[in-house]
């Protein structure tokens, strides 16, 4: 099985120096992607240090896109640029554009954009002073009780939303008897699914997941991976992972980042079976990283 390379649409700075001095060609997944998000010529810095060197990147609608690469390659920065979290870090700066359905999220209100592009973090971060169900509805509560049509959301309705999203995250059956316990009282895997439920409650279109399983045990990891398969029917998912097996298992597309460059972006089956670049192959086969 061999699907050939996707030619890039804007081959501007195609020729790049790989760290080993090998000339590589930048690859971006192709025109056939129905793009939910589009990253254009994205450059990012921490203080003086440039972490992303400027590349294009499309995220396919209702698919799972994995971003892999060794530590420090810029994968977390990339995902944090995609919902405007990067700019919150002191000393952080970026250039280029990130588009959601064709609108530049950096030209819109950051608060609105973040509610349309949800995020799940590396370490589960439930709000420990809130109960499980309050955690789940914490995002929706930000909008107050008013709905867009002017009607009020009642307490029952909020609880209903809480139950619904906990159900979607596969957590309801496990926690329904102690939804009033603190969110921090759950196990690590449950906490992470609670964080996913919390993100789903604000009805985002895209879900960004920054190494969501790195703090979890294998059983919890498996549950989250199953959940991701379930969720991609309704959501577009981008997942950063340092675990290549995970990327291979869950994702439809995979991007390989190395030292701030997008080295290769392919269908997952391609990148793991027949990568275009030697660097990619060496990383995937575990020879560095």
């Amino acid at each position, binding site marked *: 099985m061999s699907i050939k390379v996707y030619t890039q649409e804007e081959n501007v700075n195609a020729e790049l120096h790989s760290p080993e001095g090998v000339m590589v060609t930048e690859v971006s997944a192709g025109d056939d992607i129905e793009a939910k998000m589009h990253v254009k010529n994205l450059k990012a810095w921490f203080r003086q240090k440039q972490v992303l060197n400027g590349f294009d990147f499309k995220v396919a609608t209702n698919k799972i896109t994995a971003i892999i690469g060794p530590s420090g390659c810029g994968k977390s920065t990339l995902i944090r640029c995609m919902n405007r979290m990067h700019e919150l870090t002191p000393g952080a700066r970026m250039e280029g554009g990130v588009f959601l359905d064709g609108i530049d999220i950096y030209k819109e*209100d950051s*608060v*609105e954009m973040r509610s349309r592009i949800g995020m799940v973090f590396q370490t589960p971060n439930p709000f420990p002073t809130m109960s499980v169900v309050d955690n789940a509805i914490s995002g929706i509560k*930000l909008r107050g009780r*008013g709905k867009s049509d002017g009607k009020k959301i009642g307490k029952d309705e909020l609880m209903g939303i809480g139950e619904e999203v906990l159900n979607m995250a596969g957590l309801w059956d496990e926690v329904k008897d102690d939804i009033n316990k603190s969110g921090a009282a759950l196990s690590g895997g449950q906490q992470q699914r609670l964080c996913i439920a919390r993100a789903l409650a604000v009805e985002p279109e895209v879900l960004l997941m920054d190494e969501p399983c790195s703090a979890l045990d294998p059983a919890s990891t498996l549950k989250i991976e199953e959940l991701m398969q379930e969720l991609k029917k309704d959501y577009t998912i981008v997942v950063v992972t340092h675990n290549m097996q995970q990327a291979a298992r869950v994702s439809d597309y995979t991007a390989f980042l190395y030292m701030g460059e997008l080295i290769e972006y392919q269908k997952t089956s391609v990148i793991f079976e027949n990568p275009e670049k030697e660097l990619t192959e060496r990383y995937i086969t575990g020879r560095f990283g």
Partner: protein
Amino acid sequence: MNLRTRRAKDKVMKSLTLVAFLVAIVPLFYVIGTVISKGLVALNWQALGELPPLGFRNAIIGTFIILAVTWLIALPVGIMSGVYIAEYRGIFARAMSFLADVMSGVPSIIAGIVSYVVVVATTRAFGLAGSVALSILMLPVVIRSTEEALKSVPNSLREASTALGAPKWRTTAIALNTAKGSIATGVLLSSARVMGETAPLIMTAGYSQWEFMGMDCRVNSLAYVVYEFLRYPDKERIALGWSAALILIIIILAINIGVRILTRRKYEY
């Protein structure tokens, strides 16, 4: 609430935190400004060089004598207690550390009463009683500063010393030597605080218009001169009282700012 209201609320509340900050530091500058403008009126060599009622020379000297005796009492006890707490950890050491924290909140007036009962009522040594009262206030701070300073000495230093066969006291002496700057900082900040204490001195060292005559007599101090001179409607005394306040605040702020700039250390409460 729609997004525009939420954004507006965000802006308003964030601006209010700046307002809160400004409201809080207005008194700082207002007080300092008042003390400078009123204190400069009568500040001259006579004020610094004469005895009351013309000046407050004995109060400047007295402040430092009381402080020196306070050090003699509080430093050995405080530093050695701190050494025990930091070097021989256990439930007793932890309890002592907590007790010292709690004791640092003892109102200064209480220290005055205690020193009155223990020293003045039995020996009538007013000056010494003043120092004992201030020691009660200073001791917990010295204990905790020493403890924290020693705990921040890297363990590798102790291990290296122990590996060379040095006995425990030797190792601790080396650790103390490393931590001395940090301990000195704590002592200085605490000294600046007790120098301004007036309430404990009401019951103890009190007021004197004579030269220093020994710790068994009344010993004048800057804080007490401020209290004594500003209470009565006598223009010249009031002006002199503000001058004493100016000298006191200069000493205290100089220590605080100096220490903070040199060490970036936080204030201890």
